[in-house]
């Protein structure tokens, strides 16, 4: 940026912070232990950030593994023949003989009906070759050739099985890690932990110790989960390892559907136990957020004067509280089913596998709103700030969050339209599912109206937020397709579904997460990042994402089923495009990471309020001091930006002292 960049911390009035007040949560205490035992919500947020991003990396590696495997579908018909021809030749040659090309071609000629005629033709070719070859060379005999062919066929079957096994474990690891370890905790645990108390003008969340406990539950559950699933992958790559640490792995998909999950010989019990512990982390965070929002709001911040991010986090926490325990009991039942054979879900024992699906989706559909609601909260903040306009339809956005939270509990059956639900249930679930689109659309329209006539600034947080609106609209509208009964029969369990939920989970939640990270980054670390490179990062992520997943709608509508490692030729081109896009996406994400690391190492000091936002987290220096605020800031309308003036010499906004007498007043009293 410009050469007038400040090197010194400034407060909200643009005044340099004097030495004795220079306190910053990052440097408040030093040493690893001061982090591992911290009760500071900001540090816990940062620790979540490191952990969650690391797991995101693992999940991402497996995404690429999947996409790359899908460019080499060893089961397609032409590949199979090529593999077997090569192997036949190799087997013959390894026995010291040679085989003429023509014989192999004849051997694999498609559509042969007369086997005897074929044998005669091949024998002729072989004898010809033998007579023309020199005395030293040995040409293969017909029976040996046939043996070689059978061996090659066997080898191919074996390869295919391995390919499938590896693919199944990889997509399970990818999906489970992304859902349980990345998307669910990403926004609430990282950004929520960091900004929620700041937005409340509070010193911490209501229960700092539970907050730390939640991080430990997360780490414990996540590392165990990853260990169990990773073992399967490693055992596959290096089979001797199984003798060292035993079996593991998981190939049920992230949904653990029975009856397969009660039958597979992979480590379902251990994996579900890991997910169970992760649930505790989710619940503890949610308890904290609910209590904090109820009890720690400052004077003057009524429910309808809260920043929308807080509404979103509140709605999310309510869902987490109501849904996660159901997942917990479901997983316990599944463990009991596998360990003791209690016959609740296993049809061989009189149980009902559909009941499992009901239980699972009663959690997991609300869980998709755990992923999307906080994302919507971030977008509400960013859109308003970067349009320099008061958010439009505040009450509607706030209430639609709660409406989504409630409706989200009534639609789980839309995952089971083809599972043998009654027609009546199908119809009811279909209608309620479509109803969810209403509060979702209310939000989208309000964001658009907020931008209308605003002075829009396309900084990277805003770019991500705009990306969110675009991608969420596609994801949400295709959700309506999925919810339409007749259409669902056709597209269920195809790549159309894969594309749909990637648009809402990756397209929307990941984009909003990145919007939030770029938006609060200066506050978190007190460092500016390179806006230019951040925008390039956004462009690559946006383009890469759309190439990867848009094509999957088409592929799915054409019938490509999901969770298959191989496919027929007709889908090749789509898979290749998708894989190409995923590589662009990967480059984009690494660029984002690079921008962040560069900012940490080389970034200039950021001002207290680089964006001119008015929610309370911007009323303290960047990064915030250990106790968050020198003086408790007065709670005013978070979307009223009129008191902030741009100050080029600090590249940030400062509070107009005359127009905000309360702030001066509070500062004078210094009632921290």
């Amino acid at each position, binding site marked *: 940026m410009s050469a007038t960049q400040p090197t010194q911390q400034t407060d909200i009035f643009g005044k340099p912070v004097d030495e004795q007040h220079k306190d910053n949560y990052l440097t408040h205490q030093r040493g690893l232990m001061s982090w591992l035992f911290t009760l500071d919500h900001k540090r816990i947020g940062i620790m979540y950030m490191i952990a969650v991003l690391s797991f995101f990396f693992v999940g991402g590696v497996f995404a690429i593994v999947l996409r790359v495997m899908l460019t080499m579908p060893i089961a397609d018909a032409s590949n199979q023949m090529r593999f077997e021809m090569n192997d036949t030749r190799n087997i013959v040659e390894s026995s010291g003989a040679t085989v003429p090309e023509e014989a192999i071609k004849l051997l694999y000629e498609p559509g042969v009906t007369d086997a005897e005629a074929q044998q005669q033709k091949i024998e002729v070719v072989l004898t010809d070759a033998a007579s023309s070859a020199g005395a030293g060379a040995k040409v293969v005999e017909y029976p040996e050739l046939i043996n070689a062919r059978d061996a090659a066929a066997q080898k191919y079957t074996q390869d295919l099985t391995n390919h499938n096994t590896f693919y199944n474990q990889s997509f399970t690891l990818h999906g489970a890690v992304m859902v349980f370890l990345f998307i669910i905790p990403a926004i609430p645990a990282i950004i929520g932990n960091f900004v929620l108390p700041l937005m409340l003008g509070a010193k911490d*969340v209501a229960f700092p110790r539970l907050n730390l406990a939640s991080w430990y539950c997360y780490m414990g559950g996540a590392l165990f989960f990853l260990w169990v699933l990773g073992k399967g992958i490693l055992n596959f790559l290096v089979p001797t390892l199984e003798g060292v640490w035993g079996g593991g792995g998981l190939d049920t998909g992230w949904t653990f559907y029975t009856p397969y999950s009660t039958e597979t010989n992979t480590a379902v019990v251990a994996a579900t136990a890991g997910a169970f512990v992760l649930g505790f982390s989710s619940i503890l965070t949610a308890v904290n957020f609910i209590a904090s929002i109820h009890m720690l709001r400052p004077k003057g911040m009524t429910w309808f004067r809260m920043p929308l991010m807080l509404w979103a986090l509140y709605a999310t926490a309510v869902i987490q509280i109501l849904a996660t325990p*159901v997942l917990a009991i479901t997983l316990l039942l599944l463990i009991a089913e596998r360990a003791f054979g209690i016959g609740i879900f296993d049809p061989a024992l009189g149980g009902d596998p559909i009941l499992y699906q009901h239980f699972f989706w009663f959690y997991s559909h609300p869980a998709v709103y755990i992923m999307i609601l906080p994302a919507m909260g971030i977008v509400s903040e960013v859109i308003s700030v970067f349009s320099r306009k008061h958010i439009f339809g505040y009450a509607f956005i706030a209430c639609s969050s709660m409406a989504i939270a409630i409706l989200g509990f009534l639609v789980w059956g839309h995952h089971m339209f083809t599972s043998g639900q*009654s027609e009546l249930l199908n119809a009811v679930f279909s209608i309620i599912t479509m109803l969810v689109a209403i509060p979702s659309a209310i939000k989208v329209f309000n964001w658009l109206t907020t931008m209308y006539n605003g002075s829009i600034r396309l900084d990277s947080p805003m770019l991500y937020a705009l990306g969110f609106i675009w991608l969420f609209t596609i994801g949400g509208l295709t959700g309506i397709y999925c919810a339409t009964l007749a259409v669902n029969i056709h597209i269920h369990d195809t790549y159309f579904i894969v594309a749909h939920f990637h648009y809402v989970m990756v397209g929307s939640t990941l984009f909003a997460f990145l919007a939030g990270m770029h938006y609060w980054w200066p506050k978190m670390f007190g460092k500016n990042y390179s806006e230019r490179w951040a925008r390039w990062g956004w462009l690559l992520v946006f383009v890469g994402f759309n190439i990867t997943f848009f094509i999957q709608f088409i592929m799915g509508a054409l019938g490509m089923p999901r969770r298959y490692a191989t496919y027929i030729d007709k889908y090749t081109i789509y898979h290749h495009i998708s894989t190409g896009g995923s590589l662009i996406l990967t480059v984009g994400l690494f660029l984002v990471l690079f921008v962040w690391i560069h900012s940490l190492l080389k970034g200039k000091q950021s001002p207290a309020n680089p964006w001119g936002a008015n929610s309370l987290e911007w009323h303290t220096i960047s990064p915030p001091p250990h106790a968050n605020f020198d003086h408790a800031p007065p709670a005013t309308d978070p979307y009223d930006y009129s008191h902030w003036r741009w100050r080029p010499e600090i590249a940030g906004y400062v509070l107009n002292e005359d127009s905000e007498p309360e702030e001066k007043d509070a500062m004078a009293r210094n009632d921290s």
Partner: protein
Amino acid sequence: MNKVDDNHDPHLAHHFDTPVQQYSSAKIGMWVFLATEILMFGGLFCAYAVYRGTHPDVFLYAHHFLDTNLGAINTVVLLASSLTMAWGVRAAQLGQKPILVIMLLLTLLGGVGFMGIKTIEYSSKYSHGLWFGSDNAFYVKSGKYTNPEELTGAIEYGESHAMPHEDKGELTDEHLELQVKDAATEDVLDNQAAGEAQDQSLPASAQSNIGNATNAPAGLSSKFAEVEGDGSAYVTSEKKPLTYEDLDPQQQKLVSQFFQIYFLMTGLHGIHVLVGMALIFWLFIRALRGTFGPKYFVPVDLVGLYWHIVDLIWIFLFPLLYLIH
């Protein structure tokens, strides 16, 4: 409370402004946590409802294996311990240390009593081959009994529990009157009488329809709405408890499911009781040291809430598992 005290309150965490704020936060947090507990048990109640709904006779038959007397005693024990707990909370708030200590001790004893009785129940189940998982006499896998040698003994054990009813033989009006005085069965008998009356008022064809209902499918099927229990096995008009033979073969295979659900529900509940006992013990030690008083009683209050919830869950478990009719 004066200002100076506020500032020196050793129990006030730095991020709260007032003790009241801190206390209310803790309470909200606890209530929210209790909501998760209820939802967690809610899953099991759902499983119960589904299987009771899809094969009611199995539940009707198998509940005889549970000892209603012990269950009732346990209910009383737990209710009493809830009372002592509530009293303890009050004592803490009023700073009555001796009463608090006594009440916590009594509550703890209630927990011990409950778990003791539960242990008696569990071990008698265990010794009659009616345990959790595949270790159950009625366990059928892919159409075969896995522990056939235990079956006869288990059936005898269970059906002997039901004997007291059967001993009365034909129910005369006199018997009816006697029993009506028994408050616990009053409603049930009313219902039975009503059912009987209705039965008789039905045309013969309808009655036989009830009798010949076909086997219930093993689970929730696409015909959810059509799933019915096998009405013939109710034998309501005969006032005679079901026997294993009364169940049709389809249902005989599912009897072990009742025990699975019974052990899951009471087991998870028992774990909660144990956790509650540990917490009460911790309170007890701290109360002995005089930690609690009018200014600091939040932990007693919160553990009290937890204990009441655990009690409340039992209040639902007892009738659903022991008192089916």
